């Protein structure tokens, strides 16, 4: 599951911000801000992508570099959101 999320995010970042076929050039832990890949407008594009692709809702107070500033951070943030949605559904 995590692997799929990571692949989709990497592809989106590659196509949408680097305008290349994939995001292979970015390491898993690289800061997207420091590398100049995502800026303050770009993060809104990223959030919109995550919401549409994974059916999650990103709250304003979750728009933090801790959640969104690397492929690893995004992957684990999305996994957590999906997990908690599943738990809520079961409950």
């Amino acid at each position: 599951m995590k692997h799929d999320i990571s692949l989709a995010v990497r592809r989106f970042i590659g196509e949408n911000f680097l305008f290349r076929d994939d995001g292979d050039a970015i390491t898993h832990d690289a800061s997207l801000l420091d590398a100049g890949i995502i800026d303050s407008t770009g993060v809104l594009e990223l959030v919109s992508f995550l919401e549409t692709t994974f059916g999650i809702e990103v709250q304003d107070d979750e728009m933090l570099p801790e959640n969104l500033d690397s492929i690893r951070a995004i992957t684990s943030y999305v996994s957590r959101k999906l997990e908690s949605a599943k738990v809520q559904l079961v409950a």
Partner: protein
Amino acid sequence: MCGIAGYFALTPRPLAPREVLGRMVEAVRHRGPDDGGVYYDGRAALGHRRLSIIDLSGGKQPLSTADGRLWVTFNGEIFNYVELRQELIERGREFRTKSDTETILNAYAEFGPQCVQSFNGDFAYALWDRANQRLVMARDRMGVRPLYYTVHEGVLVFASEVKSLFLYPGLKPELDPLGLDQTFTFWSPLAPRTAFKDIHELPPGYQLVAEHGVIKLTPYWTLRYPAREEQRRLSQGDAEAQVKALLADATRIRMRADVPVGAYLSGGFDSSATTALAKEHNDRLRTFSLEFESPELDESAYQRTLVDALRTDHSSLRCTGPDIAASFPAVIRHTERPVVRAAPAALYLLSREVRDHGFKVVLTGEGADEVFGGYDIFKEALVRRFWARQPQSKWRPLLLRRLYPYLGGLQSQPAAYLEAFFRTGLDAADDPLFSHLPRFALTRRISQFYSPELRNTINGYQPLEELRSQLPDEFATWHPLSRAQYLETRCLLPGYILSSQGDRVAMAHAVEGRFPFLDHRVVELGAALPPAMKVRGLQEKYVLRQALGRALPREIVERPKQPYRAPDSESFLHEGAPDYVGALLEPRAIARTGYFDARSVARLVTKCRATGGAVSAGDNMAFMAILSTQLLHSCYIEPLI
């Protein structure tokens, strides 16, 4: 104000025939539709196209002294020619015309090449000193009027616009990869570099002397600021009085013309101030404005307030996206460089409107932001510097949002990311380019679209390093605001504001812009003023507002600054956009010109199309840069449309 062209054999040799000069001059006919003339003597060839503004009957050029020893071809105005003429008459010089052109000849005869120091104006000229077999070219201090040159097989070839040079035998246009890389960093090449290989621009404030087979370039004026600890002691009242008196005089001498002078009115403080000053010299002043559909860009409500308050005869042009797209190929033919914004197109349409109303001269408010510290980038740099010292301050997002109240999108951006953007270079507070690092970094995102070939040719070239290496020795001793002002005045003003958005699009329709704020006396006063009189807290142009604000409606004086912008990429992505847009951006055309990577460009275009225009500032600039580069190639290198 006119167009010039010519050539000069550095050492005696057969010169290209007179017909070549005729063709070169004809290429800048749009700059001077009223008259034309050439001088040709086998060593020097001088050509001129005239826009008659001063001494309508006697100002024909090229003009010579009575003895035929000196000849000049001149583009622009010497605004202090009345006073200078009097001084030269008192020194025994005789005048045969009433033109400002003749003051150049007589001043040269009196003072030699250093006569340029005595001119207060916007000018570019080539003067042929037959007796000394010397050609002298000079350009005004701020870079209002253009002058390009190259050396080909021992001949110095020059012109007001690059397009004339390519009509000289053997000169072939080719885009300069480093010129492109500079444009995609600073918004224009840094003179003497241009967008074309081996074509040079005479830098603002420089003089070129060619004699004995040698070309020598020397600055005759340089912009300098006082060292931080040597700031002038000046009371606020005295500063206001000096600013007011000098601007009144700068405007007065810029109203000198034998044709009516109009004014651009944006709705902002600067053009309102110049209009109010001009109104004192002309009660029936005609003003011109642009209106846009988008409320984020449109300032027509403020324009109407001004027109009512100052009672001018007013014309307004509504500019739409389709208008911009339709005119853009012609605009790029005139700018002769790629642009990262569509704003030049709107001003191109406005100058046509001015011309259609029978006007040849307009006053504008350009320069006030550079001289008196008006740009947001100055305040932004001060805020960032504060952060660098107070990294934990909770005021960060608040300060940033106050910096850009007119950017609706920015107001809704998450605080952490807003901070992140402006954090660019925050750890580099000692970098001389500190104030401009976020803008340069944002613009340089265009480089991710470079083709492998362009990347190889550039070969690791670092435009920021080149700029750092050209800064004056004492730069580090200046106040941070002065450093930011210097960078803005050096990088953006001559190459973009005064060229792509100034001379080139105004002269496309034979309209001359005049800039009271760029009178060198005003510029020198602005540089000498204490920084706190320019930016006070987050209030920009403080001393200027105090000095001139009383003559203007309160809502104009107190309104937050809104930079002039036109709709960018969305102008080219609407339904029914002109065919050239698709034709130039399709992968085969991108591969054919070779500057950009076809697949990356295809992704950008798809992304922008999906939202009817680029969402982010970086994508927007990239789109404009790529489209305008393709147009430039198609216009000058190889037709693609």
